[in-house]
């Protein structure tokens, strides 16, 4: 209980930001969704150091930098939050199956916590999200940006790309930045006005 209270205090602003996103994703209880996403991120041994380093209100002196770069954590937080909101939708759509009939030792909370049997659903969800980004947004990019990003995705370094295209490394870097940020605009358009994919259309 005290840990929850500490986390709530220490990550107050992060919870607020996640709650805002959860609301746009269609959550009916955005605050709880944000808390659940944060809880899961702090329980995960890979994401925990990154959350603590980048988002804790007070960074302990001599804290060592996490393995994850910030962008990796941001993508992770999005994935976990998305997953939590989907779970919420699934619970809502199946709640008619839970109204009564449970044994006395089975609390409402336990029933709602029933885990989905597949262990890698979060991973699958993230992959699906990433695939849709590429499929839906890449074709809208200028050909130069697309070509450069594909080369970068294939592991080529800026110097290699510059050689292949006959442009300077600075040009390649500019195209990569602009390409990613143009794609990011598309990603924001996808997630903002309509929210996430509704559970019943998944």
């Amino acid at each position, binding site marked *: 209980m005290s840990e929850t209270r500490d986390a709530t205090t220490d990550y107050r*602003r*992060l919870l*607020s*930001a996640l709650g*805002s*996103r959860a609301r746009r994703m269609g959550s009916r209880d955005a605050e709880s969704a944000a808390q659940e996403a944060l809880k899961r991120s702090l329980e995960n041994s890979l994401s925990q150091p990154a959350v603590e*380093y*980048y*988002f804790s209100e007070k*960074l302990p002196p001599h804290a060592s930098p*996490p393995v994850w*770069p*910030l*962008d*990796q*954590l*941001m*993508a992770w*937080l*999005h994935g976990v939050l998305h997953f939590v909101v989907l779970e919420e939708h*699934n619970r809502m759509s*199946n709640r008619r*199956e839970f*109204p*009564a*009939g449970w044994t006395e030792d089975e609390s409402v909370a336990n029933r709602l916590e*029933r*885990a*989905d*049997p*597949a262990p890698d659903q979060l991973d699958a969800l*993230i*992959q*699906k999200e*990433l*695939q*849709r*980004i*590429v*499929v*839906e*947004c*890449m*074709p809208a990019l200028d050909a130069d940006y697309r070509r450069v*990003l594909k080369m*970068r*995705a294939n592991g080529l370094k800026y110097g290699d790309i510059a050689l292949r295209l006959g442009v300077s490394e600075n040009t390649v*870097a500019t195209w990569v*930045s602009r390409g*990613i*940020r143009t*794609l*990011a*605009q598309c*990603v*924001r358009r996808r*997630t*903002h006005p309509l929210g996430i994919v509704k559970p019943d*259309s*998944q």
Partner: protein
Amino acid sequence: MESDLNSRIDRYLNRELDPPAARALAHEALDDSNLFDELTAVALVQAALESPATTDRALAQAALDDEDLFETLIARGAVESSFEDPAFRSALPTSERSKRWPMVIAAAVAIAAGLVTFVILRPSPQPVRQAAPQARTTVAKPIPASAILLNSDLQPEKSHDAPIFRGADAASRAPKSDGTIVSIQDGVATVNLGSLDGLSKGTELSVVRDRQKGQIVVTTVFRDRARGKVVAGGAIQVGDAVSVPSSAHIGAILQQVDALAAGGNLKAARDLAQKTLANGAPGETRALLERLAALDYQSGAPEAARERYEVAVNNFAQPPAASVTEQASALASYGALSLLGGDRDRADDLLQKALAKAADPGLRSQILNNLGTLAEARGNPDQAAAYYNQALTQTTSKSDRAVVAANLARVHSATRP
């Protein structure tokens, strides 16, 4: 100030920010939701660009199980790619503009799938411990290597179709065919059976006590309990045994089989179906037999699947007799499996019978597509094209349409001088 932020976002996306600078940017984003969204979106793009899930092959594989992705891939990406491909451009017919669009889709499908032969009627992509690709090897002999057959019944159940409350997790249990009365009050009995066991409002439960029969009509259903009105057998008491009607029990078993299969546990799904088959009457278990056939197929045992369909078809008249719709569907699946096995005459007979019984345009389209493939296998491209064209006029599914168009395109390209 803004250019400074832009510069830092550029460095963020290029991972050039040192950890303290990244932390500062993160905290700035906590007070600026727009920046938080921007950083998240950029991070997602980065992850997408680096993800193995977004390689062409991974996308094509994922699209096989995701109709929306499949369609998007065709609509937005692959079509564009196809126009850049000289091989595709040269394959386009120079006249008959009206045929251009199906050809575009067809080539797009091929390119999207990395030009890998992809057969919609295929073994499951779910984790299967048995040898799965048998069907693929047999398909290459009797019918064109890149032919695409269509059949909905043999495809794996999607996980979201499986009700979570009947999931195969530890909290669930197998449906029961018998239970007991746990309480009776004012003519209303509560039994320890519920929706898990196939009960629904109106289900009639039989009660046997001292050779006297009673009956309860279910009025309220919970997950593992139900209440119902006692309509016959006034002497019914707490502790009396109640039986679930066979049809309801088998329906519940079918749902659990689907849940197990959707979770990738084909073996448990097959075992459960097999066990139930052994205890049911032939007519009542026909649907289960067909489901088991699909599971056999997904597990890489098309021969076993074909045999089960043969039994199911022979049991059409067993009570309760199969509806025309069920007959059409089973015959279509049996025919498709026969075609995969190279038995063209039997496939022809079954598919024609299925076509005669099928009323649903989607099913008719799939049967016509498979008849087209059969005609191709028999070296009759004109007839194949005719079937494919008929299939195109009837299909209601965009992904089916794309598949039929791919088949049609192949026939056209093979016959072009």
